[in-house]
């Protein structure tokens, strides 16, 4: 049985640049989302966030 050869799509420079641009934006957006949820959790709990049994 002949071995199947898989051809991959070769991205142009413009496509690579656009992909990198999108990846950076997605990374930043996810980072901001993490910070938002972290800060909001502290804001919602208020000072009681420090009140926990040792």
């Amino acid at each position: 049985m002949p071995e199947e050869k898989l051809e991959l799509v070769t991205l142009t420079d413009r496509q690579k640049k656009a992909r990198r641009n999108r990846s950076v934006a997605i990374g930043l957006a996810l980072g901001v989302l993490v910070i938002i949820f972290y800060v909001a959790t502290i804001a919602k709990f208020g000072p009681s966030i420090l009140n926990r049994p040792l």
Partner: protein
Amino acid sequence: MALVDDTRIEEAGFRVSEATAGDFFALLKPRVMSLVVFTAFVGLVAAPVAINPLLAVIAILAIAIGAGASGALNMWYDADIDAVMTRTANRPVPSGRVLPGEALVFGLVLSALSVMTLGVLVNWLAAVLLAFTIFFYAVVYTMWLKRWTPQNIVIGGAAGAIPPVIGWAAATGSVSLESVILFLIIFLWTPPHFWALALFKSGDYARAGIPMMPNVAGEASTRRQIFAYALVLAPIGVLPWAMGYTSAVYGVAAALLGIGFVGYSWRVFTMPDSDRVMKPAKALFGYSLLYLFAIFAAYLGDSVVERFLSMGGL
């Protein structure tokens, strides 16, 4: 022979995206979003319950993203008509910079994310109102009303009018008559604003087959209706003062702005049929943007000063 070659990939409708983050940002309709952010902020600040400033920022951000998501869904669905209108031909989807599927997924993901964030971190009434707004704009207005009836922007205008109610709900967890009046101001402002645009862009809408009022009922009827809406809008703008929600300073500002709106609308109403330049319609379109910004700014200023004074001032 290659299993997959470039030609067959293109034929199969597959194309590697060249869209940048800026193109996706354009899908959010930033200019519309800025108005949504501003009116939601006014609703949030004017509410009698003080909200944690961090949660307030998050609420406004979620409302902005939700509004942007509905804009992306609108651009996905309307790519065919956007392509034939000069005002919208360069949008990311009709210009080919963003693939339709990308716009759809982007809109759906941001819709879910914004509603869930608002619900989990602020409150679920505000989240439900935001979800309803997105649904109303993307499905009821974009997919149904826009191509079906000249009342499209009258009914669809409700989506653009809800943000101050969402802002109010984010702060208080409820909906009050005061926030409904803010809704009414934007709701009644929308028809004269868009019909003024439709008058001098009627060729665009006709080419796209959108039943805007000037194309269906004629320009004379549209001009009459613009003036009628202005006559209703002006007193509604003063209503917050009349009902005791604001000081007389807001009342005077709203009255003057309303008189201006009626004046600009009167010039459109009396515009001769032969006028193809339509300077009065263009002037009303510009003034209407100023009106909405100014009346909400006056409301915001009044609320802030009143709260400051109630805290004992300096």
